[in-house]
């Protein structure tokens, strides 16, 4: 096992533990950067899709994973970001300005929603946000002049410094755009977590009473969390719109909200890694299923496996399996595997067992 002997505070503050860990992440980064040369256009597109989902996952992770506020309404913010981006571009705003604005506008929308939602906890907040997701469908239909209603909208490529960035025509450029946004969001997230604000999010998640006693303004902190979460989700939505090329009121349905929440649970709540791991599952599952369908179909013959809703069924089963067997998600499982190797042969099952504390100070509400 590696022990890091800390001799100054910078070692404590920097995001990586030691040179070894840093080199692993740099290697991963180099691998992603070389993707356009390693992958063909189809798989590059799939990777882009995974990254977009990861951004959306990071957005929800801020709110649900780190601040402890469950949201089943994030598809509404994806939609908001998507339509805001397209509406701004159609109004003649250059993409480089329209894109950041779409996230900021979504953040403002998120805060507006957060003000009444601040009083709600747990399941009530989940229901509130679920309602939001359902409402968004109608709002998009009603706001037809901007959103195109049921017909929806079509977007082609966008121009950045005179260069066309389009999902179909120039998939490599589009990949760079998405990768850039992913990196910026991730770095911002890492910085946030090692700064006072990120810690106050965790404080609010784990114990509101004592966070308050330490001088953390609960309402304000939740509001900032909503704002950041919705902004990031809005950016993901904008990219999703560009990726899909066409979307209408049904694109960002409640199912997307649920899928997003399932994604971060499967990946591992409360970790940046979790958002990425979950995105890999969500992004590749449909492809995996369609590929395996061929094989299964070949064995059983014909359309034996052409069952509607199969994807969500399998997704649900994966989620159930995770909640039962690995509540810490894929990242939690990875931590266990790593510890097993590091401590070999001294790993014990109980090391990751959660202690249950039955005593809790009265919640005052």
């Amino acid at each position, binding site marked *: 096992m590696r022990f890091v002997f800390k001799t100054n505070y910078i070692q404590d503050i920097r995001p990586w533990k030691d040179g070894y860990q840093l080199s692993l992440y740099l290697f991963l980064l180099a691998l992603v950067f070389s993707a356009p040369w390693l992958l063909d256009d189809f798989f590059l597109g799939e990777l882009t899709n995974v990254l977009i989902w990861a951004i959306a996952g990071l957005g929800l992770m801020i709110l649900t994973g780190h601040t402890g506020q469950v949201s089943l309404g994030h598809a509404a913010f994806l939609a908001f970001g998507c339509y805001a981006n397209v509406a701004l571009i159609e109004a003649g705003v250059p993409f480089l300005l329209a894109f950041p604005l779409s996230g900021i506008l979504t953040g403002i929308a998120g805060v507006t929603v957060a003000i009444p939602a601040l009083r709600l906890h747990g399941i009530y907040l989940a229901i509130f946000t679920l309602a939001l997701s359902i409402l968004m469908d109608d709002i998009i239909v009603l706001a037809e002049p901007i959103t195109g209603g049921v017909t929806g909208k079509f977007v082609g490529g966008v121009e950045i410094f005179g260069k066309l960035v389009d999902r179909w025509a120039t998939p490599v450029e589009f990949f760079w755009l998405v990768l850039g946004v992913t990196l910026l969001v991730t770095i911002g997230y890492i910085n946030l977590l090692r*700064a*006072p604000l*990120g810690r106050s999010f965790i404080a609010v998640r784990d114990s509101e009473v004592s966070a308050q006693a*330490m001088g953390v303004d609960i309402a304000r902190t939740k509001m900032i969390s909503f704002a950041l979460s919705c902004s990031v989700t809005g950016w993901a939505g904008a990219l999703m719109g560009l990726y899909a090329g066409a979307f209408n009121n049904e694109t960002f349905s409640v199912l997307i909200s649920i899928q997003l929440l399932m994604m971060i649970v499967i990946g591992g709540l409360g970790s940046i890694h979790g958002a990425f791991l979950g995105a890999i599952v969500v992004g590749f599952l449909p492809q995996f299923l369609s590929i395996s369908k061929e094989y299964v179909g070949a064995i059983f013959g014909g359309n034996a496996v052409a069952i509607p809703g199969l994807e969500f069924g399998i997704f649900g089963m994966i989620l159930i399996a995770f909640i039962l067997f690995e509540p810490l998600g894929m990242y939690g499982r990875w931590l266990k595997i790593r510890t097993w190797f590091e401590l070999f042969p001294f790993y014990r099952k109980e090391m990751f067992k959660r202690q249950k504390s039955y005593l809790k100070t009265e919640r005052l509400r």
Partner: protein
Amino acid sequence: MSLLEFESVTLKFGGLTAVDNLSFEVEEGEVFAIVGPNGAGKSTVFNLISRFYDPFAGSIRFDGHDLLRVKPSGVASYGVARTFQNIELFEHATVLQNLLVGRHRHRRTNLVSEILFLPSVRQQEIKNREKVEEIIDFLDLQAFRDKMISGLPYGVRKVVEVARALATDPKLLLLDEPASGLSVEETTDMRWWIDDIRKQMGITVLMVEHDMGLVSGVSDRVLAMADGAKLALGPPEHVQSHPAVIEAYLGKAS
């Protein structure tokens, strides 16, 4: 002027009077203990200071400020820190992170500078760590510095909670049953720490405690309560032998 002044404070929950016309003062630099049977309203007094409840009547003043005008999250910024009866730590964070949350009231950076992690944030982080490190040394928590709270034994969590309260740099430290659930040795440690907190750090301590050994060992004055009202106030020996206190604990001799 006293550091903390309770003036005829009354708090009712429906028909139940939790705190009944209670007045007392805590002087700067003393260790002040509140004792009483279960349900006497001791923790409620703490929750009133933390502004979790609004009193029915009366006033609470701290260091010359009217505490009743302060919102709950603002109390810490005046220099009041507290621990909780049933440990309220941030479970899925490390000891260090917990203590750093204690430094929250000294935060001088904003959202944008933190997301960019500007040099000012780095400086602040280093400064916070210097302060936190002193407390870790003071309470012998070095071995647990980077451990998750969820894996720590009860006795250590209790100390971490005191450490987190100290990290806020308080003038007044509220300890809600600091020795409950601790072993004899741990209680002795706690006793020396409370003594040192007062003497070395110059922090006034207000505590609720059932362990009379600890109370008479460290406190200068003791307030005995029953049913939300004051029974006796004075030095530990005086309160312990007070007939009303004995009656509240043991009942009347028939």
